[in-house]
């Protein structure tokens, strides 16, 4: 069910709830505006069942065939008288006149510009959702702009179309936000791009598309109904032709959000994903940055760079989410940041606590362990003792070339605890005051639970990183 999918999209990311709230609030009030027929359609904030039929391209050109259309028309007729009712809500539909009229409280009084014509209604319905707003979310829009009008047409009810538009825009924006992981700022941008104070309801992008030159974009951008209609039909036909290619195209994209978009959209509708693919392929005009502007998004350099930056940050946040235990369910940058900060602080506190413990037990024990370590390292990394002395030296400079000197002191420290190092020591001058102490290995017959000492003592191959990884795991208690 599409509406289930819509719900799914909007629920996927906790961060979007912040956006959801303000956005979704638009819908119920609008729902209350409609007459009885409207209420049927607006029972749920999401698209109702009849809308499902609309998604099929077949109904695109035959809105009259759908039962909803008849319903809509009758509804329209009944509500046509409401044209002049002023509305304080989303404006994007207002230029369309017709559509606005059916949802009286939603649209401004500038309605009765257009003749009441069923064909016009179709076109207007189609365009109502493509008002002068910038399109923020594409995926959802998956059925996306091309589909939206078709949906409207299918229903045939202006009010319903408006509702759908609003619903879709709402959902779409929500989904978009979720996909982006964007902040309120992003939404603010989108809203500002919309050009009217209102809204998040009327998202439709077309005007927001600056760099897109594809036919679909041209279609969407066009404000003239006929041109738009024709082009939209073509785009729909394109969609019908290759429903899956869009998905394939988007799979090749580099941006993560596009991939996410594709996945989400495919859940809903393959055509939707295809639409995304088309948008993505069209908008990849900037080869410099490997980011494809999604449909309906401004493609100027600033927003692109911002989007890239946001994607990078969200990518890293996801990685951090895996790193920090117990944060897989946390969503939202702020909460995640708090969790990360807490975790880092707790780790630092643990280090302090453990160092206190070590300081307490230190005098009791001779740390000859490092002798074992050194021995093992030498054994596996060098033949002759003198050579081993140098080879162990060589190890570190490779590991951290910038700390050559530190390494020298470290190695000489180790060397002081092992017989094999003694010759090496003599060949180097050590700045540290490490004394040579008898190797206290015999005292260290410790039944280590960890395999570290046993492996070290018996010449386990330290060059095998996996050994140490398992040892590192053993360290954890």
């Amino acid at each position, binding site marked *: 069910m599409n509406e289930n999918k819509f719900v799914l999209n909007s629920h996927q990311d906790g961060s979007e709830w912040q956006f959801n709230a303000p956005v979704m609030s638009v819908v119920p009030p609008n729902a209350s505006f409609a007459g009885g027929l409207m209420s049927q359609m607006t029972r749920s904030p999401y698209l109702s069942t009849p809308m499902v039929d609309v998604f099929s391209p077949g109904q695109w050109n035959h809105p009259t065939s759908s039962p909803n259309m008849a319903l809509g028309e009758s509804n329209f007729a009944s509500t046509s008288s409401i044209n002049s009712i002023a509305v304080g809500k989303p404006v994007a539909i207002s230029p369309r006149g017709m559509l606005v009229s059916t949802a009286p409280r939603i649209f401004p009084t500038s309605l009765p510009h257009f003749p009441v014509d069923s064909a016009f209604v179709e076109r207007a319905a189609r365009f109502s959702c493509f008002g002068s707003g910038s399109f923020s979310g594409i995926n959802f829009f998956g059925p996306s702009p091309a589909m939206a009008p078709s949906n409207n047409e299918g229903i045939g009810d202006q009010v319903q179309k408006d509702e759908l538009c609003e619903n879709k825009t709402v959902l779409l924006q929500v989904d978009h936000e979720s996909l982006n992981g964007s902040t309120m700022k992003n939404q603010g941008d989108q809203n500002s791009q919309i050009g009217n104070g209102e809204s998040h309801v009327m998202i439709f992008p077309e005007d927001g598309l600056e760099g897109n030159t594809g036919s679909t974009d041209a279609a969407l951008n066009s404000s003239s109904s006929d041109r738009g209609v024709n082009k939209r039909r073509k785009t729909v036909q394109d969609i019908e032709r290759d429903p899956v290619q869009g998905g394939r195209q988007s799979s090749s994209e580099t941006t993560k959000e596009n991939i996410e978009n594709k996945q989400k959209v495919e859940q809903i509708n393959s055509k939707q994903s295809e639409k995304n693919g088309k948008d993505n392929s069209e908008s990849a005009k900037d080869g410099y940055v490997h980011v494809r502007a999604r449909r309906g998004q401004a493609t100027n350099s600033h927003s692109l760079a911002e989007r890239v*930056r946001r994607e*990078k940050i969200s990518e*890293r*946040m996801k*990685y*951090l989410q895996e*790193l*920090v235990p117990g944060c897989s369910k946390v969503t939202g940058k702020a909460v995640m*940041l708090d969790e*990360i*900060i807490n975790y*880092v*602080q707790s780790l*630092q506190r*643990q*280090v*302090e606590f*453990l*160092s*206190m*413990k*070590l300081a307490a037990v*230190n005098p009791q*024990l*001779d*740390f000859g362990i*490092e002798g074992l*370590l*050194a021995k093992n*390292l030498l054994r596996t990394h060098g033949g002759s003792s003198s050579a081993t002395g140098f*080879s162990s030296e*060589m*190890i570190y400079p*490779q*590991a*951290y070339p*910038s*700390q050559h*000197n*530190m*390494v020298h002191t*470290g190695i000489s*420290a180790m060397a002081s*605890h092992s017989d094999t190092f003694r010759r090496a020591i003599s060949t180097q001058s050590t700045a*540290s005051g*490490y004394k040579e*102490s008898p190797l206290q290995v015999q005292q260290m017959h*410790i*039944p*280590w*639970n960890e395999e*570290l000492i046993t492996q070290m003592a018996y010449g386990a191959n*330290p*060059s*095998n*990183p996996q*050994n*140490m*990884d398992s040892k590192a795991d053993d*360290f954890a208690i």
Partner: protein
Amino acid sequence: MDLEHSSISKPMIMAFHFLGALSHIQKTTTHSTFVCRCHRIRCAAYTSMALSTGGHSAWSRALLRGKLRRGGLRKRAVILQRPRKRAVRLEEGCQDGADVLRRLVPGSAGMDSAELLDETADYIRCLEEQVSLMRSIVNVVSSL
């Protein structure tokens, strides 16, 4: 220079240095107070942590820079000088609300959010390894 030498695992390097430092501290601070020893062990822990990363991360370089300076090895501190190609950028990337994180992770003051998150991830990983190493040492030592 055998290439295989560079394949020594990070935890091993960390253990190597940390244990060496521990033994050094143990030998040289028999007269010191408990608090002083604590502090030195903590320093040793962070130093071995920073050493184990091989200087790839900014936080490790910052840590070592601080330690070297404190140790008076000015010449060696020069090695770890971070190239000053980047001034502190006060763009929006820096004003992410992650200032607490910047305080926590050493050497991350002049970074934007993306790099900061990278550094944080690296820092967290190293911290975890260090904590596990110290815990195992404590276990071993206390079970003697």
